[in-house]
């Protein structure tokens, strides 16, 4: 896995096992009382997508630029650790299409899902 950028470190994100990203609960992630801010969850989803594409690319000089990001919020984000895993739908020469899910206590009950198109600048 590639090094995490400052924004990821600010969110407290680290790389877990099996290419899963982990965002441990921290009070600075709270939006409305008792819930994670949707933006923090979106940040986790975007990072998971970026890292998955980065890892799938042989050429490490490729610059990744997310161009469209759609996030569906499925459940409230509780004040516990959040996990995310990306699935690459297509990795082309110019664009990658990625689906990402975030979950907390039960991987079968995602709290959010994102769909991204990432432009690959070679």
């Amino acid at each position, binding site marked *: 896995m590639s090094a995490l950028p400052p924004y990821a470190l600010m969110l407290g994100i680290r790389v877990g096992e099996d290419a899963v990203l982990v965002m441990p609960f921290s009070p600075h992630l*709270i939006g409305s009382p008792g819930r994670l*801010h949707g933006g923090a969850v979106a940040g986790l989803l975007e990072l998971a997508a970026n890292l998955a594409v980065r890892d799938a690319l042989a050429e490490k000089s490729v610059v990744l630029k997310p161009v469209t*990001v759609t996030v569906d919020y499925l459940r409230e984000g509780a004040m516990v650790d959040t996990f995310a895993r990306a699935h690459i739908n297509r990795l082309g020469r110019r664009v990658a299409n990625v689906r990402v899910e975030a979950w907390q206590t039960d991987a079968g009950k995602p709290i959010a899902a994102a769909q991204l198109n990432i432009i690959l600048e070679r």
Partner: protein
Amino acid sequence: MTDEPKRVLDDDASQRVLDDDARMRRFVDRFMQAVPHLQALGIGYVRSGPNWAELTMPYAAHLVAYPETGTIASGAIFSLMDSAAGFSVFTTMGRFEPHATLDLRCDYLRPAKPGQAVFGRAECYKMTRKVAFVRGIAHDGDPDHPVAHVTGTFMLTGAS
């Protein structure tokens, strides 16, 4: 985007509008200081109208996604726009009623310029009993050259 509310020209009335603005700013600043993630990102209130809100996020090293260029993370802009869109729902309802983001799509048009604050302006262009529809832009100084465009929906969770 909707135009700003028309201002009455006589001095007393415009003074009253300013006072309302100042009161609104104080109220919203206090509200936002109680939201930890907005504090973490440095997001602050700029202004708002009957169905729109504008927030700002100053440039900061901890928002950077590309250390080589100093470009901030698109995820931080997503947070800014989710917050601005949520605020536009509050101003449209005229009260802080609970709502939850159902979905939000962000198109990143270009990278934000390193060192520049980003402004997020969103409007609630349609409100039904249970769903609020929002759209907005993020820019880094010139609203005519946005860095991102968003559309989304919020579920009004307080609705029966």
